[in-house]
């Protein structure tokens, strides 16, 4: 489904991705962990075609997204749902209008059909009654949930979550993780989550990859990652002071 091969990217001479290789199969949920500023979001932006790599390829269902432009790129992106780090809700639209936006612009559904879908999505993410509010009037957790509803509203085949729980309290973190699990059960999408949420992410992801110094240093099931002897993985999971990860 997603095949990343030897992906390299530098900014101003500084190598951020140094040959990333990663393969994600259909309906699998993979989490990518790594220290802040380590290139996780940059990797995500390559997979969704916002950034172009210096080298390497990203195959989505066999098509290299790094070489596509215009309508061809849009066609691949129709398979995507993306939850951005800050939510990226449109400021000028209400929560309801934000969630309805992809349906209104990309499908031929009637106004009533869109309303039904949006109201159901609002209920699913626990935002019943908040549809009329604007992004500036709601809390960070509500914004993330609204953004999650927008990402899932078109029933995408692949969903990307860029730090869906960063900056939220533990109760909301738990509820967002539950929402992702429920949505995955309901829609059966392939998921890629960028997160540092330990141990919560172990409950959500099928496999976990650790990005360090621009490469994936370890990938495995949550159990394998927890039992890993790799010093980078051990330090990252325990949050230890001593180890190969500089801080």
């Amino acid at each position, binding site marked *: 489904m997603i095949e990343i091969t030897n992906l390299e990217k530098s900014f101003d001479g500084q190598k951020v991705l140094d040959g990333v290789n990663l393969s994600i199969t259909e309906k699998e949920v993979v989490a990518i962990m790594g220290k802040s500023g380590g290139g996780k979001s940059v990797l995500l*932006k390559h997979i*969704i*075609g*916002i950034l172009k790599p210096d080298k390497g390829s990203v195959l989505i269902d066999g098509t290299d997204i790094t070489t596509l432009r215009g309508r061809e790129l*849009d*066609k691949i*992106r*129709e398979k*995507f749902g*993306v939850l*951005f*780090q*800050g939510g*990226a*809700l*449109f*400021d000028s639209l209400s929560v309801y209008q934000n969630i309805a*936006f*992809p349906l209104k*612009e*990309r499908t031929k559904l009637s106004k009533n059909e869109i309303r039904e879908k949006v109201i159901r999505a609002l209920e699913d993410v626990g935002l019943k009654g908040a549809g009329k509010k604007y992004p500036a009037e709601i809390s960070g957790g509500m914004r993330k949930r609204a953004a999650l509803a927008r990402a899932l509203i078109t029933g995408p085949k692949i969903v990307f979550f860029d730090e869906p729980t960063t900056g939220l309290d533990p109760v909301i973190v738990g509820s967002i993780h539950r929402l992702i699990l429920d949505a995955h059960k309901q829609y059966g999408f392939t998921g890629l989550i960028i997160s540092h949420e330990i141990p919560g992410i172990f409950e959500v992801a099928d496999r976990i990859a650790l990005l360090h110094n621009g490469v994936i240093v370890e990938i495995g099931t949550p159990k394998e990652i927890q039992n890993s002897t790799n010093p980078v993985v051990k330090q990252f999971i325990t949050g230890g002071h001593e180890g190969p990860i500089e801080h």
Partner: protein
Amino acid sequence: MGRLLAALGAWTIAKLRMLGHMFVFLFNSFYFIFIPPFKFRILLRQIRFFGNKSLVVILLTGAFAGMVLSLQVFYTLRKFGSEALLGPAVALSLIRELGPVLSALMVTGRAGSALTAEIGVMRISEQIDALATIALNPMRYIIVPNIVAAIFVFPLLTAIFDLIGIYGGYVVAVKLLGLSSGTYFSQMENFVALEDIRIGLYKSLSFGVIVAWVCCYKGYFTGFGRGFGATAVSKATTEAVVMSSILILIWDYFLGSVLL
């Protein structure tokens, strides 16, 4: 010396590259103007945005520009005993030159800066990326409506500026300086030709494109150079206003030379 030349060369290449990038951006914007689906609702909202933000400033600056012009020109004309030509002098100065230029500068400061800041915030908060990943072209949704709105709004605001300016000049000439109302307007009718109005219209149209182009470009690529977050937005806004203002004056000279 060698290092200085190398730095100058690098600066020139960077500026030329940016200019090329800006022209590709403008070309893309015009391309999408003619490709459906058209976003009429967003276009109407942006027409309102430009008009609503700038109307009061245009009324105020237009009135005072006409008044001061009338006052200054009156004393100059009196030296030659030609006070009767005050009306045409005020009208021609406003219609051909001051109206388009001053109103474009005012709209740049008022609506252009707000436009860059708004698009810049959309960029740094990933709203533009969100549009792209919903498989919707951000150029069509954000840039094209602003360029088309500016093409409609700038000539209208300039016309309002000219009208208010001429009446501002009338108040000073007739009520303060004692010129007869008939002289002020009748001479104007004799001297102002349709060609003068057409020149003013061409100027305001092209200024509209320049302002929307520069302000949208700077907002759209906020944070791509140096700067981050709020700093990047403030830097983009300042650059947009300065660059638009300089380009308006340079283009005014070139257009004036060609159209005269």
